[in-house]
């Protein structure tokens, strides 16, 4: 099993990964190991399972293992058992020894052409990984926006109509609690209550996509959506309530009332539309917050979305993957903010962009 690979091609940073692995196994490793490579893997000692695990590991790791480090330093002390010299030669091979600025501009030049590089762990192009994970994240975000907005606006309008009543007080207390609940804790509690007390395992088994099995997909997605929508609806409710209260005391609402309109018509026919403009702002700018929240929620429910991709990339120090996902999410975020600004124009004709 000897592959002959021209050296020039290997200098290329974005040479397909499978070839790199082959090169690594056939060329680089035999240079460094006298013994059989596999023997090295299986004779690795595992630390005793005592309380001092962390300290125990410390003694065996080189100093820079506590830095974030690169992929190569993540390999040190794991299955590969590389020495410093071997790590250095690998760094040179992957171009990691070049100055950071050079590495950065290499990356940005390729990123601008839609090439985010290759994931070091899976060997897939980063862009392909992102595209395959994106629909789930988008689905959760959109569903929680819809659910949160519907619930938030409905409850907010009710709270504004029955302002000062017991119902209003209860709603406001719930909103305060909703804002203070960390979504990852709510998710954990939902799993706990459903699985332990009601014996419902919504998120057991593998993830199925919406196109393959709509019902099964919705079953898996519903609990994360509720988690995200909970605190989101609380902030929507607060904004709806306060802006509606402001609107129904304005002069045009009084005029509508003095013409004999019923209160219901004053609210739903006249004031609600104006009161929803701040809500649109809020929803637009909360999309980014939700995107950040989905990262954590996917971890809680073990859903293979963009967030889990990102977090796995972080823990494996797969920086091409991490950079790619973050740039991708930030682009989506900016795009959504732009859409929000345009949506204002439709909601409020007074706003014009020249």
């Amino acid at each position, binding site marked *: 099993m000897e592959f002959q690979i021209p050296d020039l091609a290997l200098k290329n940073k974005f040479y397909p990964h499978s070839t790199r692995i082959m090169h690594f196994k056939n060329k680089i490793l035999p240079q460094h190991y006298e013994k059989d490579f596999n023997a090295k893997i299986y004779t690795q000692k595992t630390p005793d399972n005592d309380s001092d695990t962390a300290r125990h590991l410390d003694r065996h790791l080189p100093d820079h293992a506590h830095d974030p480090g690169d992929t190569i330093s993540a390999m040190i002390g794991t299955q590969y058992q590389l020495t410093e010299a071997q790590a250095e030669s690998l760094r040179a091979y992957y171009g990691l020894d070049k100055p950071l600025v050079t590495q950065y501009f290499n990356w940005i030049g390729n990123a601008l052409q839609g090439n985010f590089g290759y994931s070091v762990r899976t060997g897939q192009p980063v862009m392909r990984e992102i595209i395959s994970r994106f629909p789930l994240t988008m689905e959760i975000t959109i569903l929680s926006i819809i659910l949160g907005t519907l619930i938030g606006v409905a409850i907010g309008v009710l709270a504004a109509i029955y302002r000062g009543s017991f119902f209003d007080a209860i709603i406001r207390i719930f909103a305060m609690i909703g804002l203070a609940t960390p979504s990852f804790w709510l998710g954990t509690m939902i799993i706990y209550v459903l699985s332990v007390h009601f014996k419902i395992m919504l998120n057991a088994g593998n993830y199925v996509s919406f196109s393959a099995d709509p019902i099964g997909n919705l079953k898996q997605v519903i609990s994360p959506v509720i988690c995200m929508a909970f605190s989101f609806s609380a902030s929507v409710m607060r904004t709806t309530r306060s802006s509606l209260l402001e609107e129904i005391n304005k002069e045009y609402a009084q005029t509508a009332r003095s013409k004999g309109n019923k209160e219901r018509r004053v609210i739903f026919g006249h004031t609600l539309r104006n009161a929803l403009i701040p809500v649109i702002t809020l929803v637009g700018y909360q999309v980014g917050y939700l995107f950040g929240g989905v990262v954590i929620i996917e971890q*809680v429910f073990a859903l293979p979305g963009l967030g889990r991709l990102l977090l796995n990339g972080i823990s494996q120090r797969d920086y091409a993957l991490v950079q790619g996902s973050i740039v991708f999410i930030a682009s989506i*975020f900016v795009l959504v903010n732009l859409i929000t600004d345009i949506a204002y124009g439709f909601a409020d004709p007074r706003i014009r962009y020249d």
Partner: protein
Amino acid sequence: MTEITANISELNRKAQRKRNFQYSLFGRLLRNPGGIIGGTIILIFVIIGLFSDQLMPFDPIKNYPKERLQSPSLQHPAGTDEMGRDVYSRLMKGASNSMAIAFTSVAFAGIVGTILGAIAGYTGGAFDNLIMRLMDLIFSFPTMLLALAIATALGTGFLNTVIAISIVYLPIFSRTARSTVLQIREFEYVDAARCIGAKDARILFRHILPNALAPLIVQVSLGFSWAILTESSLSYLGLGTQPPNPSWGSMLSQARVMMELAPWLVIGPGLTIMLAVLGFNLLGDAVRDLMDPRLRSKGL
């Protein structure tokens, strides 16, 4: 006769002092129910955080293998975890950790952000452009994601978590400071100060900034709850405080595996985060209502 007038003026002075207190910020805060509740919660958390070493009934890090996974009892009010550590003590230590990170990061973001924003707003021109575009750059990331990215790049640990949280919060302070400074620098007393020969630094820091503090204090009080949530989220994902040091977020993520066996391990830290965030939210809303009537939320 003189004695009586002296007494009366003494009484007047006392009444005046009482009235002064009632109309002062602190006095008004005490009459705001949200402020009272939030302030009390935060005060308790701060005291626990400051004196956690004295208040903890057990060692939060040392293992007691014989006592593991005990349900809440009088001895262990919040139960014990899989290594026999008292969850109540760990929550206290976690409070000290969370409070320290929240206060340091908000202070750091507040000071740096205010100074940058104030100088940008006062000088204008290229510096203003540079700073504000930089802030736009930070603002174009989802907040949680940016904190995650910075924490990844810097690594874990107290200082790195603080830096991650404060960088994300920087634009809010610098934008607030800049917009207020832009308004105030047009006032006549600023011109007057310049006429008598005050230097720019003196005008900015002695005359403008003290008058621009109100909206900044509002942002500070609203920032704490966000900082606590972010810290616990980062720790939950394993990027904030590292074990064996207790942190609310990491306690939650470790307890998930044993949820069925020991639900108190999940409920305790979660409720604690919720209570702390709730306290800071209530206090923040109260401070906002008092300091900045324009931003006042109707009700709530």
